[in-house]
């Protein structure tokens, strides 16, 4: 049956890859999901049948080529299949963030004019029903989990399995057309549309062609020697380009198995059970894991604590060198082997990293201590730099050249250049086609020769060719005395302290820098418990004098480290407040991928920023908060403004400029 779908020049679309895998790796596992306590699995051949049944069902429901299909829910095989089925029908899948609120969903679905939505459960169904009036083109919803939906009006709603049933029933009627539509798909047809999280303004729809997806998947899989026998755990939002490339692009290209956790809460248990060989996580996940290990070690018996401390000290000394294959003495190797047996091995097993061959982190800078901790255990954790517009990969660290302060060398097929203002530009086969219905933004970002502006400022290190990123180009500014202001650089240094969850630094065109700090409730709460400090709320803990003292010492340590950098020594934090609430995506202060939205924060907390600069000792403020269910409330607080000691800046360099 596959004859019309095979092309001489190789598979040129995601569905074509699916057909290839269904033939080539027919009985190898393609997807696993833990359900009812047991890992259910589907082979590539079964996957093809499931996807095809859904596609045929969609045909029966009247899907047209070029339609947009929203896919919303947590990572489940069924939803990955939904994306493939949509593409089979010549439609374009548009995955959305599952925790987006109804208005955010309405904006995206309206912008692309989605006719169909394939969603996970009642929660998503309710959200769409809420905004359905604003979606003139929207027609049918397909849901996966029927729980709680029995009594809903099913005029414009169908259960996923029923659609597949419909597809199997009307197979003969539509199969010819479905095959014809798949045969039309090539490198230039759209594979997926992903909305950027939008640090500024409304999200933009990034159109990625099959060329972008397949070329990127191919070169990146080769770069890291990904194999058909690899396993990954798919737990990051499906709407994020990274998950799409790992769980669809690379999974399709190499034919490895995508494992979906039982629920968001069981992620760590599932991680341990699967033991992925290829793993990706944003720095925050590694940070949380390390924090929980450290907290648990604090509670361990003295013998265990001693064992852990001794061998971890040894691991920090020789672990990275052994991983990179550098010369290490026999005695150190022996001690490391001993440590592997007593500490590293069991620890890796607990963390779920026993089998990891390649691990990546990206999205934000990772603290050097955190990075080194994992590497010293023998986990090949590396950094990469990428963005949605590049289909992820711009630079990555090759094995043996891993450092915490760079993001690696250019990936195969990628060209880099640095503009005069320091902004990084790239050109690659992964460069996106366009922003959907937004030619103006497309022109602003991508020039006629295909060079794309990353919006990040950075430089290529002499000698090694590694790229180093300083900050978002538009956030890099000048202090009043003309020295460089790079807030992210300082914020990252602050965030490397486990007690600090989030930091926002101000100071553009001012005399000195100031900062907002969010404490990490897990770390600080544990410390409070240990020291018998009672607190009733986040707010109360945040303004505890001892917490303030600790944060102050962290800020001062950062100042000392910032002062060492000649270019950025002006960015030392002179004054700071510990905020009374956590910055939250629901309040619009962070993006859904948890990046700080500076403009919004500046407007919202204008009164606190004023207090940071007018010398007052404290500031009273009232902040509106949005609860998860959309209700609004407000928090009142009086915040203490603290001064932090700064290092004297050597003025010689500035004078010399």
């Amino acid at each position: 049956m596959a004859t019309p779908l095979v092309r001489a020049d190789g598979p040129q679309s995601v569905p074509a890859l699916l057909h290839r895998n269904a033939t080539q790796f027919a009985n190898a596992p393609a997807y696993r999901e833990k359900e009812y306590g047991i890992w259910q699995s589907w082979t590539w051949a079964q996957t093809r049948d499931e996807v095809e049944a859904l596609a045929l069902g969609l045909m029966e429901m009247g899907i047209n080529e070029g339609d947009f299909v929203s896919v919303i829910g947590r990572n489940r095989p069924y939803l990955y299949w939904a994306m493939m089925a949509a593409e089979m029908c010549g439609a374009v899948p548009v995955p959305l963030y599952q925790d987006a609120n109804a208005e955010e969903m309405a904006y995206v679905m309206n912008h692309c004019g989605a006719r169909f939505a394939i969603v996970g459960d009642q929660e998503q169904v309710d959200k769409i029903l809420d905004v359905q009036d604003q979606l003139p083109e929207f027609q049918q919803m397909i849901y996966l989990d029927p729980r709680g939906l029995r009594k809903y009006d099913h005029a414009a709603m169908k259960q996923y399995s029923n659609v597949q049933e419909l597809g199997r029933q009307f197979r003969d009627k539509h199969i010819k057309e479905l095959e014809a539509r798949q045969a039309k798909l090539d490198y230039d047809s759209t594979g997926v549309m992903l909305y950027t999280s939008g640090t500024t303004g409304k999200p933009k729809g990034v159109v990625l062609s099959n060329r972008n997806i397949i070329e990127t998947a191919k070169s990146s899989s080769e770069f890291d020697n990904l194999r058909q026998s690899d396993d990954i755990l798919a737990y990051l939002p499906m709407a994020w380009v990274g998950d799409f490339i790992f769980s669809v692009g690379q999974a399709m290209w190499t034919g490895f198995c995508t494992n979906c956790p039982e629920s968001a809460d069981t992620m760590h248990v599932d991680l341990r059970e699967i033991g992925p060989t290829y793993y990706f996580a944003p720095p925050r996940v590694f940070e949380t894991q390390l924090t929980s290990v450290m907290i648990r070690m604090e509670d361990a018996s003295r013998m265990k604590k001693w064992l852990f401390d001794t061998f971890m000290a040894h691991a920090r000394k020789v672990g990275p060198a052994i991983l990179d294959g550098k010369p290490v003495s026999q005695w150190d190797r022996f001690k490391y082997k001993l440590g592997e047996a007593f500490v590293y091995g069991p620890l890796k097993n607990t963390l779920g990293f026993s089998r990891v061959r390649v691990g990546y982190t990206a999205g934000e800078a990772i603290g050097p201590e955190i990075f080194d901790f994992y590497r010293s255990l023998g986990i090949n954790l590396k950094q990469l730099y990428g963005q949605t517009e590049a289909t992820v990969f711009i630079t990555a660290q090759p094995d043996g050249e891993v450092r915490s302060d760079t993001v690696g060398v250019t990936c195969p097929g990628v060209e880099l250049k640095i503009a005069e203002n320091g902004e990084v530009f790239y050109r690659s086969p992964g460069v996106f086609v366009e922003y959907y219905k937004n030619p103006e933004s497309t022109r602003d970002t991508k020039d006629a020769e295909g060079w794309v502006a990353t919006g990040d400022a950075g430089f290529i290190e002499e000698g090694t060719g590694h790229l180093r990123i300083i900050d978002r180009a538009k956030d890099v500014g000048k202090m009043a005395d003309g020295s460089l202001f790079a807030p992210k650089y300082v914020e990252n240094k602050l965030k490397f302290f486990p007690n600090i969850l989030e930091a926002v630094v101000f100071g553009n065109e001012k005399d000195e820098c100031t900062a907002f700090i969010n404490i990490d409730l897990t770390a600080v709460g544990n410390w409070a418990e240990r020291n018998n400090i009672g607190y009733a709320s986040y707010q109360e803990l945040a303004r505890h004098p001892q917490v303030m003292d600790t944060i102050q010492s962290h800020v001062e340590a950062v100042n000392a480290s910032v002062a060492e950098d000649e270019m950025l020594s002006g960015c030392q934090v002179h004054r700071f407040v510990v905020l009374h609430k956590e910055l939250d995506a629901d309040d619009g202060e962070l993006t859904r991928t948890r990046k700080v939205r500076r403009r919004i924060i500046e407007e919202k907390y204008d009164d606190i920023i004023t207090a940071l600069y007018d010398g007052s000792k404290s500031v009273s403020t009232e902040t509106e908060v949005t609860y998860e269910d959309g209700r609004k409330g407000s928090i009142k607080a009086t915040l203490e403004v603290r001064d932090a000691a700064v290092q004297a800046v050597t003025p010689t360099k500035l004078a010399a400029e």
Partner: protein
Amino acid sequence: MKDTADSYVTADGRTIGPVVMEMKNITLRFGGVEAIKDISFDIRQGEIRAIIGPNGAGKSSMLNVISGFYIPQEGEVWYKGSRRPPMKPFQVAQQGIARTFQNIALFEGMSVLDNVMTGRLTHMKTGLLAQSFWKGAAEREEVENREVAEKIIDFLEIQAIRKTPVARLPYGLKKRVELARALAAEPSILLLDEPMAGMNVEEKEDMSRFILDVNDEFGTTIALIEHDMGVVMDLSDRVVVMDYGKKIGDGTPSEVRNNQAVIDAYLGVAHD
């Protein structure tokens, strides 16, 4: 009141079936104390029936009568059209009546999964000997029962604590595990004794949703005791009000709310 044999549809579109359980003139004494005085009411198929009243009104005693833990001195319990003779709690459980307790009564040292599995006990037929060898029928039976238990774990969203010993869980989750164990018996009537006592608003919202979902998805008839008036008024189809062992009101939430005797005895002064 509608005829006892008929189904009817409520104002918000819920279908309530015929009467499944009827309490006729129940009186329960402990020595000289009359905990329940001559109370009659019925429970209909598929409804959520609340029993409310001030402290010491006899609500928990009433629930204990239904579950067979107390045997009333006077009165009759009719279940599925026939009079129920005095029986032991396990016999009542075998008839399809499961319950949760006001003060959680789980096996603290056992995992959540094992606790839920104990709820399946009434459905297991193989004997001790067969189960210790765990071959053939016993193995099949365990697999089947585990599947039911897992579906309930999934339903109540407690997958993450499946293997956690109950003693380590916070209060709100223990309550949920208890509900899971009761559900594992696949009861036709579920008795909940203050399912939301001591919970915060968020936990109460979650629990309310689970109760509604259970009722909706499995069609389980639910009788519950609850103190939170907001919850009772939102959840239940009909409410029995007790005070000092006597029934002082019976009807839909809005009927009960406007009943002068109830207002005087329990809800306090009427607003507007």
